[in-house]
């Protein structure tokens, strides 16, 4: 699996990432690092605990990272979640979106995992 295919698998924009980071080496480096980022765990914990400020900050961070990495799918769902949480909404709609973020994250993580294994870990 190439990095480009990995991006396709996680619904990201490879060209955008390349445009920003300029080299495949850097993109690959950051993509692999993405799995180590703790923001998603923080989001899950905060959502369960009903901690709206922390959840908002975590969603916001994910949004920022995804914007930089051009992970379009996860960027969109996390952005929407961020806006709901910003407005203090922890209701059904937020939960629904959170499930979407989870799904997008899972897809992203899976793609990166697969890429990592093929790239020789």
């Amino acid at each position, binding site marked *: 699996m190439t990095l480009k295919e990995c991006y396709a698998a996680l619904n990201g924009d490879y*060209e955008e990432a390349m445009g920003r980071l300029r080299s495949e080496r850097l993109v690959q480096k950051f993509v692999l690092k993405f799995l180590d*980022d703790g923001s998603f765990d923080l989001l899950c914990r905060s959502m369960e605990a009903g901690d709206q400020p922390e959840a908002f*900050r975590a969603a916001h*961070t994910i949004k920022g990272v995804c*914007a*930089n990495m051009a992970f379009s799918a996860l960027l969109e769902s996390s952005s929407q979640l961020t806006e709901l949480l910003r407005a203090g*909404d922890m209701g059904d709609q937020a939960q629904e979106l959170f499930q979407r973020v989870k799904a997008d994250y899972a897809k992203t993580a899976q793609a990166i995992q697969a890429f990592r294994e093929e790239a020789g870990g």
Partner: protein
Amino acid sequence: MKNRITRFLLTSLIGVALLCVCVFTFFAIHMGNQSAATINQVGTLYMSSMSQQTSVHFESIIGIQMSQLRALVGTIPSDIIHSDQGLQQQLMAQAKARDFAYLGFYGNDGSFEMLYGSQLTVTDPEPFLDSLRKDQQKVAIGTNARGEKVVLLGMPSPHPSTPEHDCAALVAGLPVSYISSNLSLEENNERAYSFIIRRDGSFVIRSNDAYRNNYFERVRVLYEDVNGITADEYLEELEAAMVRGVDYSNEFTMGGERYHLYCTRLPYSEWYLITFLPYGSMDSIVTGFSHEWSSLTILSGTIILTALLLVFYKYYGLTRQQLQEVEEARQAAEAAQKEAEHANRAKSEFLSNMSHDIRTPMNAIVGMTAIAIANLKDPQQVHNCLKKITLSSKHLLGLINDVLDMSKIESGKMTLNMDQVSLREVTDGIVAICQPQVKAKRQQFDVFIHDISTENVLCDSVRLNQVLINLLSNAIKFTPEGGEIHMALYEEPSPKGDNFVRIHIEVKDTGIGMSRDFQKHIFDSFAREDSARVYRTEGTGLGMAITKYIVVDAMGGTIEMDSEQGKGTRFCVTLDLEKAQVMEEDMILPSWNMLVVDDDRLLCETTVAALNSIGISADWTLDGESAVDMVIKRHNRGDDYQIILLDWKLPGMDGIATARSIRRELGDKVPILLISAYDWGEIEGKAKEAGITGFIAKPLFKSTLFNSLRQFTEPLQVGEKPPEKKGPDLRGRRVLVAEDNELNWEIASELLSAEGLELTWAENGQTCVEMFEQSPVGYFEAILMDIRMPIMGGYEATQVIRTLERPDRDLPIIAMTADAFAEDVKRSLDCGMNAHIAKPIDVQEVLRLLDKYLK
């Protein structure tokens, strides 16, 4: 609540009313009694004084007569005998002169010896004689020979009258009427009347209507009620008072009328004067007063009650009003809450719906980027793509600005940013943005420019773009594959004056159209026709609302629409725009001969007219075959067309085939330009192969033609060389980066270090503040600040840094965050930051801002 107050008010009102009635009734009764007592008292007072007066009067009358009589007695010498004729004559003369009706000597044995007048008898001689013997003057009643009553005045006289009788007194007689008239016992204005009785009740002088001889008898028969006691008891009381010699006063009822009685003893006699006063007159006065008093009481009671009622009514009204106000306030609060909920819902809806308008240009960017990457070896193609990407990006930017300014539009605070706008550039931009979508849906898209002589106008280009994009993207969206979309621009003189020009923009499609009902709501916010046909079409439902706002409210234009379901829709926007005061470039080209080939006659004519205006004479024709004929004809004449404009899509022989034929006839010498509203990327290869020199994009503005044709004035046209953009030199500058996310930090570090910046990482706002505090003054030259960080956020950190006691506390701080709403930007600036950059990180933008603030 309301009922309780009403009940309380009613109860207290009734209570107070009852109290009023009781108090005033009590007063009325009490005053009634009081007035009765007062009458009694007044009666007693009045009667006693009247009786006193009568009694005194009686005394004085009798006293005068007595003194007369005494004078007579004085004239009698002590030694004379009564038989003396001369003396008798003298006495008689004197008595007559004193108006005595009778005169005689009264003997100790009770016999009369009359000097003149008829023989008299004393009715009750015992007490009379007793008194006289005791040498007391006395009045008594007697009768004359005819039985008439006579008042007798006895004056003791010790002289013997006759030898055989001892003379006790000289007695003079007066008619009873003398006394009664002098005492006014009978005729009395106030209907009071008096009479005189003896102690045993027998009348001395009786009242007119009393026919009985004894008053006591009369009382027993006639008197109905004597002030609550029986007649006998009354009589006992009266007699007791007589015996004791005191005055007696009482009230009684006789013949249905109330009377007051007063009894007093008369002097010189054994007589008692009894006076009656009917209460009638006094009663009526006092009763009148009492009535008046009662009426006043009732009146004042009524007034007080009315006042109370009024107060209660007012209070009740006030209470009700208060309740109503509370109720109104509650309703207002409810309405406000509903409104807030609605606004909140609308906002969420809006955010989640917003994707459509953003996607339209975004798709263009994504698509063009893909094409450019696929054609990296073809700089022309890449350049072409980049141009379109730029246009779409600009539009996207504008759109995002609109989203940020949505609140402005909603609150009516949107203002236009008037600037010089080239209609050509606007139209070109729109066409470029729409083309990918049109192509994707295989729709036929045509743009017509009719007689636009004023290309440069004053307008808000972003808003104008927005209007056109909305109209066109709707047309594309709601037109099925293979449908047609036409956009036309034409101008006419504006009624606003010579400085203005009226621009008509018409967008027509052969799409699904709108129902009549929906046409009424098309310009409402979040309006989207709710039917199965449009179910899958995405959009915010804001487009037309914004369009209408911009065209009608902001720009003062009009927007018309007609639509039929299944046939299509036509929008026509009319705007009066001010002409831009610019020096129009002197667009003159050599006087070439040109040929324009297009299947649309109108396009041909307008294009020829535009060409004429820049100094070119041109022919036109509607199809490829005739075009080839005309070219051959001119060629044979040796008067070739210098340039040929060919439409790509022609009936029969298409543009490329036509070009191929012409090239066969004329060789490569004459430039042939292909007119196309479409992106020519994909046909370019084929076109070049067929001998097409270049392309010219619809719409064909005068300037479009001029710019495209100008290159042929010089034999060799060098492509526009973009100036080499040299980034600012920021090598060695030290920047502190506050960023809580390691990944983001690494990306920033990687990208910015490559530009030669020396970066230091602070994990949160607190660390950032500490590191800055501990650094030597001037060490860090700028800070890139994330906003959402644990422990201390970017806003707070900035505020802390700005208040530090350091000479470099106002170093540039640039917010770098995923928040990109207008209010976030504003808040960053309010907190003392210098600028705001949205993630994803744009290195050029960061460098530009750093360069700007590090100067």
